[in-house]
């Protein structure tokens, strides 16, 4: 690994050709159903037994359904957690299909057997001519992780829905369906297919004056030959892609009819509730339980010591939680030497000390750091630090579970319904075919619901007690007993030449997860770069947290680059721009953000701006943040963001996501912090794990650059990484105080 440019790494994946299939069938009662997915022969096939163990089973990801009433339904595999993917995926399908947008519906793909076993479709297998999706770039490690996750998941994560499923499945399904409809009409009318135009779910043959709705040919279309690699539209032909079509999930969310996981009320199921408590320290379990103070409380049905947690089942959630509070539980002792925040940081520090000036595992190397550093005119060193973070999604963690007659049904908010199914299979001893995962909307997630632990806990309680139950975690449980964005320490050394140019760059840290390139300052042309990792224990379990490793390294790298600019006596914007001379897309983004933020213009006393640029999940995002320090405390005034995601499918939705990423990033930058006390998490709820409030939120302006002609990038995560460094750099510009640690607010308390 000696090349740092993301583009180069992408090309290494060319041999991963994508294999897929599309198949069509006739719906009961008429109408056309087309499924598209991936199966053996593509890289995911190697891991297929985990998803499709039976003969003839295939992982079908997307469907399009054309009913006899001319309603077109996009059946989408991704969950809707507020990011708007459902609607935008439908938009991509509808564009290729030339569908009447007002008659397009979106439906969540189910995870039941009929969805996985594609016996309704006549299967075809053919290699896709399209390249493997770029989101699984850019290193083998990153690729393997993503495939490993995806193999067992209709996963929604990695800012990937639009750029993978949208680009490679929804559009293909739409284009294939359109071609079949045209073919059926051409046969019936006896005219060449090339003369038939399509618009608003209608087939038109201008010369003969004939026209028909899609519905009229939907059934006949199923007998048409299917083009496995239909030609997709080019940007100039788009009618819906690139437009801010209103999201189809919003009306229900405004009028309250939208159903989230916690709203689950399956018909005919009378369920009880459970509250649970897990051990406060990872790796420990229940030593003993004394329920004598709880068992006579109102509404209590059962109290269980499950070994790894304690549960109370009651008539209502409130009763369950109140009784649980009165169950006295003792826990086994933890073997972990890490008890406090200081212990965790000490473990990192000693690992890096041990690695020394040149040790550790090399993650990326270019040129010769040692020589360049020795010959540098100016050198600088810095150590940065960020704490553990929780996801804190608004909708509490929940799962409604029913286990009866050898079958298991769960209703839950999840990003990984198939992984949930696999975990339930392992935990309950029930065959996958008899497990159904129903997954309604998620009330926020940010990576929190990429695991299945809470669904397994719910199902085990249901299995043990015989009660269908709705399991709800208290906010305290979710804050203290979940999975976490790791705390991290990152050490830098840099050498500048006589002119101030950054010629030597060394970085060492301890937690390298995903994406693997997050720690590599690959967008900059720095001739001698070395990125290293030192192995150190992580006390709390790891979770992907919005933007994953970029959430830490965005802050580390872009703050340190700012330090280098300062050491060089250069303007932070100009300094970065000079290092982007070989990166035209990145430098265009940076120039644009300087332009719209009026970078360099004089500001009122106490105010200053900071800048940062991070490329993540295929999108380049630069931000300028203006802060007012005149009160002695940071007041966030304005954020300007410029994004190049290649081609933005729904500009309004994309901007929403970038804005959300910025607010999420600023929340973490200002307040986000979990401390370890006695081996457990100290913070418990929103009073001590604060969110950025409306009155603290700066004005945010987002601009989009459609540079086109590149694989499109993600939206959900890329807005986050530049926020913290842009803010810290602004505070430095205003005060001269370099912030090498997050969160920020308490440093000005």
């Amino acid at each position, binding site marked *: 690994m000696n090349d740092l440019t993301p583009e180069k790494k992408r090309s290494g994946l060319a041999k991963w050709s994508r294999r897929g299939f599309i198949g069509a069938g006739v719906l009961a009662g008429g109408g056309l159903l087309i499924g598209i997915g991936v199966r053996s022969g593509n890289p995911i096939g190697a891991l297929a037994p*985990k998803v499709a163990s039976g003969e003839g089973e295939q992982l079908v990801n997307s469907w399009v359904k054309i009913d006899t009433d001319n309603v077109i339904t996009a059946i989408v595999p991704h969950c809707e957690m507020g990011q708007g993917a459902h609607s935008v995926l439908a938009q991509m399908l509808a564009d290729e299909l030339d569908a009447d947008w007002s008659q397009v519906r979106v439906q969540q793909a189910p995870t039941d057997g009929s969805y996985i076993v594609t016996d309704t479709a006549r299967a075809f297998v053919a290699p896709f001519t399209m390249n493997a999706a770029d989101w699984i770039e850019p290193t083998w*490690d990153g690729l*393997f*992780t993503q495939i*490993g996750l995806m193999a*067992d998941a209709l996963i929604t994560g990695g800012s990937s829905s639009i750029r993978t499923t949208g680009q490679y499945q929804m559009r293909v399904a739409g284009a294939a369906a359109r071609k079949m409809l045209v073919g059926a009409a051409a046969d019936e009318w006896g005219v060449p297919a090339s003369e038939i135009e399509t618009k608003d779910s209608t087939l038109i043959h201008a010369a003969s004056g004939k026209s028909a709705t899609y519905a009229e040919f939907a059934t006949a279309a199923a007998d048409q030959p299917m083009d496995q690699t239909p030609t997709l539209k080019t940007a100039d032909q788009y009618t819906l892609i690139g437009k801010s079509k209103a999201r189809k999930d919003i009306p229900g969310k405004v009028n309250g009819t939208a159903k989230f996981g916690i709203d689950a009320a399956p018909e005919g199921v009378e369920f009880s509730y459970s509250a649970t408590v897990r051990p406060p320290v990872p790796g420990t379990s*229940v030593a003993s*339980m004394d*329920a004598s103070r709880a*068992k*006579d409380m109102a509404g*209590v*049905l*059962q*109290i*269980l*010591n*499950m*070994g*790894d947690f304690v549960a109370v089942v009651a008539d209502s959630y409130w009763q369950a939680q*109140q009784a649980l509070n009165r169950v006295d539980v003792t826990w086994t002792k933890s073997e972990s030497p890490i008890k406090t925040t200081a212990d965790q940081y000490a473990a990192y520090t000693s690992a890096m000390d041990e690695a020394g000036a040149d040790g550790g*595992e*090399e*993650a990326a190397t270019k040129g010769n750091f040692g020589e360049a550093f020795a010959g540098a005119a100016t050198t600088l060193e810095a150590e940065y630090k960020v704490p553990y973070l929780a996801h804190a999604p608004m909708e509490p963690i929940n799962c409604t579970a029913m286990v009866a007659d050898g079958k298991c049904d769960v209703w839950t908010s999840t990003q990984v319904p198939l992984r949930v199914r*696999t*975990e339930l*299979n*392992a*935990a*309950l*001893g029930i065959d996958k075919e008899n497990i159904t995962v129903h997954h309604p909307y998620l009330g926020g997630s940010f990576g929190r619901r990429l695991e299945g632990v809470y669904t397994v806990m719910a199902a*085990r309680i249901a*299995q*043990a*007690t*015989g*009660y269908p139950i709705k399991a709800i975690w208290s906010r305290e449980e979710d804050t203290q007993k979940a999975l976490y964005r790791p705390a991290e320490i990152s050490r830098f050394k840099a050498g500048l030449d006589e002119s101030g140019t950054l010629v030597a760059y060394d970085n060492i840290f301890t937690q*390298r*997860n995903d994406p*693997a390139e997050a720690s590599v300052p690959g967008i900059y042309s720095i001739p001698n770069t070395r990125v290293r*990792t030192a*192995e150190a224990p992580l006390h709390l379990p790891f979770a992907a947290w919005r933007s994953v490793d970029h959430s830490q390294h965005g802050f580390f790298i872009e703050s340190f680059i700012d330090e280098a600019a300062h050491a060089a006596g250069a303007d932070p914007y100009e300094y970065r721009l000079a290092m982007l001379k070989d990166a035209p897309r990145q430098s265009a983004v940076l120039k644009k953000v300087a332009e719209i933020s009026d970078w360099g213009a004089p500001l009122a006393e106490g105010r200053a701006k900071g800048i940062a640029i991070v490329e993540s999940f295929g999108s380049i995002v630069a931000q300028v943040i203006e802060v007012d320090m005149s009160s002695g405390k940071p007041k966030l005034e304005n954020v300007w963001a410029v994004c190049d995601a290649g081609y933005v499918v729904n500009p309004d939705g994309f901007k929403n996501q970038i804005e959300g990423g910025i607010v999420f990033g600023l929340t973490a930058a200002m307040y986000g912090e979990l401390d370890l006390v006695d081996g457990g998490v100290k913070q418990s709820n929103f009073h001590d794990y604060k969110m950025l409030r409306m009155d603290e939120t700066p004005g945010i302006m987002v601009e989009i650059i459609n540079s086109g002609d590149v694989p499109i990038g993600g939206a959900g995560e890329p807005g986050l990484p530049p926020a913290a460094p842009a803010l810290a750099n602004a505070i430095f510009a205003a005060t001269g105080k370099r912030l090498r640690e997050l969160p920020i607010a308490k440093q000005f308390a």
Partner: protein
Amino acid sequence: MRNTAFLAAGLLTLALAACGSSEPAPVVEQIVIRAPGEPAAAPDAPAEAAGVIDKVAFGEEAFAQCSGCHNADPGGPHQAGPNLHGVFGQPAGSKEGYPYSDALASSDITWDFASLDRFLSNPAAYVEGTSMVAGAVRDAEERAAIAAYLASTSEGS
């Protein structure tokens, strides 16, 4: 390389999870008060059966629904709503250090059973402009009990 090792471990776990034990984990201890399908036992409430209800105790229990915003502990802090220790018998909006709405502060209400009943049944209807926008208590008996509980905190204070 370290990262590869990490991933291999991760995938191994996945594989184990996928093909691992198909026997459900045993339950260590299960206390069954009522099994599914069993009728609820007759209410075992001697005090109630004897026609004696400890109204204050019931009120303290019912006050749990208010505890998202209020406490009634002596010297307890103001939360989203003010501390309510000893407010019974006092003019509305008179607790030190809580930013009452103008509407409540300027009202001439004194908290007694009647005013608490009206206020708790629908705060905004009784005091238009109150910042207590949630927390109405629908059940009249609960309102009376909560008032009794609050009154008990005023005794001797």
